[in-house]
């Protein structure tokens, strides 16, 4: 106990461990698993990333002319990197950057909007299928 007391006193003179975070940024190590980034120029629209993602944080919305739009929710993504490993065009079409996600406020509605989007995407797929089927028939 005496040593602990002397330690308490000596700590008083030592520099604290604290990194003054918002003032001085923390250095992330190389290959930190941050946000997922996407580039539609290289994507071959194979949908593998969407299928493999455990929480379905990547959703493609289908348009009637056949093209798709990529949607990603950083508030749903668990940053596992499975999509990156599944993607045949890793690095070009889809990659994990070293940026961390930033907090959002209730106005942004990261949850509610996603519900709507999820529904729309599902609907859009079905519509597209129906259109395709109709085309085939005709």
């Amino acid at each position, binding site marked *: *106990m005496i040593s*602990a007391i002397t330690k*308490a006193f000596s*700590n008083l003179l*030592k*520099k*604290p*461990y*604290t990194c003054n975070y918002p003032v001085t940024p923390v250095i992330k190590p190389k290959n930190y698993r941050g946000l997922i980034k996407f580039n539609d120029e290289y994507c071959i629209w194979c949908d593998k990333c969407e299928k493999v993602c455990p929480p379905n944080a990547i959703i493609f919305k289908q348009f009637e002319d056949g093209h798709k739009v990529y949607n990603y929710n950083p508030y749903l993504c668990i940053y596992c990197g499975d999509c990156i490993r599944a993607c045949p065009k890793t690095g070009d079409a889809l990659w994990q950057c070293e940026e961390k996600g930033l907090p959002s406020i209730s106005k942004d509605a990261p949850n509610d909007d996603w519900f709507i989007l999820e529904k729309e995407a599902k609907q859009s797929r079905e519509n597209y299928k129906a259109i395709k089927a109709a085309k085939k028939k005709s």
Partner: protein
Amino acid sequence: MSWFLALFAPVFGTLVSGIDRVVRARMQRRLGPPLMQPFYDMFKLLDKRPMMVHKLHIVLGVMHFMALWASIALFMFGGHLLYIIFTHLLSVIFLILAGYSVRSPYSHLGANRELLALFAYEPILILMAVGFYLTCGSFEVSVITSNSPAIVSMPLMFIALLILLPLKLKKSPFDAPEAHQELCGGVEIEYSGFFYEVIYVSKMTEIIFVYALVFLFAGQNILLGIILVTGSFFLVNAVDNATGRIRIDHLVKKVYATAFVLALLALGWISYV
């Protein structure tokens, strides 16, 4: 001067507690909060919506603070030491009653422990007052502070007081009555908003009360008083950072086995020498 001291005792207490928090953080190698943090806390509490259980609870909380303040005021005006100690006792009893007045089990347990702690330290405070009487010939604080330092004639009594310090300041190893991790603060658990502020301020005032007792040992020598107070302040903080909380039954035993015995020895010494 004494008006000033008595009136602003809570403010000084808050300041000391601010220093205390910074020192504690530094001892744990953290940066710690800003120095004025307890003031910010108080202003914020003023701004919160209160959520209280019933009126009696509030009244007892406020009485606790008033009695404590009164005891400080008595002290600053050089009053009778026994009166001071008994007013202080009264304030603690109000707090304990407040703890019993609500139905939360934490509050009850906290009050139980507070009561046990009271039994542990109160006799020693009284013995201390007797000690002062024997050395200075009076219970009046004004007489004691115009005499030569009492610490010379009863150093053992001073050590006994040092042992009580963590108990009164709710610091480990003797912080069982408050016990953040077991009781979430014990008796203060049901207070909120402005009314918690009252309890918060009285905690700050308590600091002044305790260090004033330390100061008393220096008699008329103000410089020595300041040394004693700062010395004991750092010592208490270091001990707080070097020990865990001991259980309430151990607490009572330990306090009786050390502080009480020391106080008795000190009295014996005074009457023999």
